[in-house]
């Protein structure tokens, strides 16, 4: 492989990886605050993808469609937590079972409404951009830039706003946070809402680089899990690093061998990390939450 090919493979990997990072980050926020691994994350993401597609074709404006989906996803996330997951606080395993039930519901609805054929969303940008050796489709550049903007926004939210600080505090110690006057229950609703919003944004972006079908949710969920665990469960930065790493490894696997080999490689990465560094690549102060 020549140098520009290697660079192309890595850049491609970073693009898919940035979407994986968003998925992992959403899962991490929910997991860190609620101790619930939301198994329906991938399906909620696809719901956002299909809704963006439908709204885009209906209104003709990509940005309007994304804005509507983002608002709806935030509301749905908060709603799911208030109605369902809030009942499962004492036993996280109940939350897991609820999310397993949600998978069946959302996937069935997607299948019935939009059918099993893979789809692409017509992207708002087109063309090819060249950086020295690397030829990059504009869609991929768009995905990367969008992800960076989203990640900066989330980082500012977590570090600079009162709600963000309260959210991190509640994740670290719910008791201490609640003694400091934080309404932990509300913060949990917020975390679920933000997590679902991130899934929805990832969903709106993913259709630009991958054809989307209802069964895609499972594999995206697994990638999100791997990002969550590899990064050191509970660490937002870890989830982002984990997501990017998986993207690059997958891209290398696909270019050298095949899609199956790429999946086996990612699972292998998880097992290696688990074995040698059970707390993840980026360990949080309190250690792994898993």
């Amino acid at each position, binding site marked *: 492989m020549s140098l520009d090919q290697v660079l192309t493979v890595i850049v491609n990997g970073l693009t898919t990886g940035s979407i994986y990072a968003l998925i992992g980050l959403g899962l991490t926020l929910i997991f860190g605050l609620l101790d619930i691994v939301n198994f329906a994350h991938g399906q909620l993401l696809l719901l956002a993808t299909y809704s963006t597609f439908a709204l885009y074709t209906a209104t003709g404006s990509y940005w309007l469609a994304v804005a509507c989906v983002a608002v709806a996803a935030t509301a749905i996330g908060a709603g799911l937590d208030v109605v369902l997951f809030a009942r*499962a606080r004492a036993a996280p395993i109940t939350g897991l079972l609820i999310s397993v039930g949600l998978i069946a519901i959302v996937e069935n609805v997607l299948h019935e409404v939009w059918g099993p054929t893979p789809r692409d969303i017509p992207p708002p940008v087109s063309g090819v951009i060249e950086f020295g050796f690397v030829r990059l489709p504009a869609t991929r550049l768009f995905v990367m830039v969008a992800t960076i903007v989203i990640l900066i926004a989330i980082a500012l939210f977590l570090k600079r706003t009162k709600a963000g600080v309260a959210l991190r505090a509640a994740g670290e110690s719910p008791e201490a946070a609640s003694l400091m006057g934080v309404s932990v229950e509300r913060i949990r609703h917020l975390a679920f809402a933000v997590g679902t919003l991130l899934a929805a944004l990832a969903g709106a972006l993913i259709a630009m680089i991958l054809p989307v079908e209802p069964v895609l949710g499972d594999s995206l969920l697994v990638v999100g899990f791997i990002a969550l665990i590899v990064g050191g469960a509970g660490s937002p930065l870890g989830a982002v690093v984990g997501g990017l790493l998986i993207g690059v490894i997958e891209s290398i696997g696909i270019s050298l061998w095949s899609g199956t080999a790429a999946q086996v490689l990612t699972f292998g990465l998880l097992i290696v990390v*688990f074995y040698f560094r059970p707390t993840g690549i980026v360990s949080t102060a309190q250690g792994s939450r898993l």
Partner: protein
Amino acid sequence: MKRLAVHFSSPIVAWLTFALAVAAFCTFGDSLAVYVAALILAWALWGTSLNIIWGYAGALSLAQMGFAAIGAFSVAVLCKDEQINFWLAVLVGMVLAVALSVVVGYVTLNLRGFAFAVMTLITSLLIVVLLTSWEPAGRTTGMVVAASPGEIIIGSWSLDLGSDQGLVILLAVANTVTLVLCGWLERTRAGRFVVALREDEPLAASLGVHPLKYRVLAFMLSAAVASLAGSLYALTLKFITPSLFSFHASVTLIACVVLGGLGYRFGPLVGAAVYIGLTQWLHVGGDYSDALSGALLIVIVLFAQMGILGLLKQGIDKLTGKQPAHRHDESPTDELETQTGAMTHD
């Protein structure tokens, strides 16, 4: 009342009900009823494998789909040209599944809660991924199961075990053997150790019970049962694809086990009868049957965590004035995780 309750909860009554139901289905049922009965029994056996690792050992495993896929495809691939005996293929599947469970178990069973669930899920998905890209297993299109389990001949009467009636009998026997084995294991040292670890790991470990060793043992048994269930499930369906063993299977599996009563020996059987019976026979929802079963799972989890047998036992305890067994934590939402399900007195 008390005597009635005692009899009602005794295993003999449960076994008699089971035998009568199987006999009734085989004698009076039309072909659809017999097929549904076979499906119920296959899911019950599959559910029992989950009950062993989740109900008894307290670790929610999502690898059961993967183990069953191994059993199913062992039979389908090895018996394709009828060169290898069906039962030998079943055995090969079980050995493979058990070997895998040892490897996965030693790496992951130290992990608690989600990490174990996620790792086992990944194991399952990996198996499915490998099967979909494996030529002899028909890739994504799937393959016909052309295996024959043989026939029973007594004098002039004979029964082909591959027919639907024969399958119901075969599955009923497999369920019986597994449940009797479970009942026996509940009373052995190893079985008590496994339950003790679920209840209070530090305490059990301080008394010299090796946590990893006994959990891996439970996982091995559950893998063997899951593989057997997969082989017989494949025989019932007669056509299998790798996607049968995807995440959806686990939704149904978990629903069966929780609905029947997690940790109860007969729980998966009762749960499968109600859940599979409901979704198969009534064909509720038509196109939206998946969504309905998902909603059903959520309702069960939120409002009937103890399952049918748990509610039944609670009712009997109330009638006979018996106090419920002492628990460390009385929080009702902790039920699923800590529920002992009174497994030791079914």
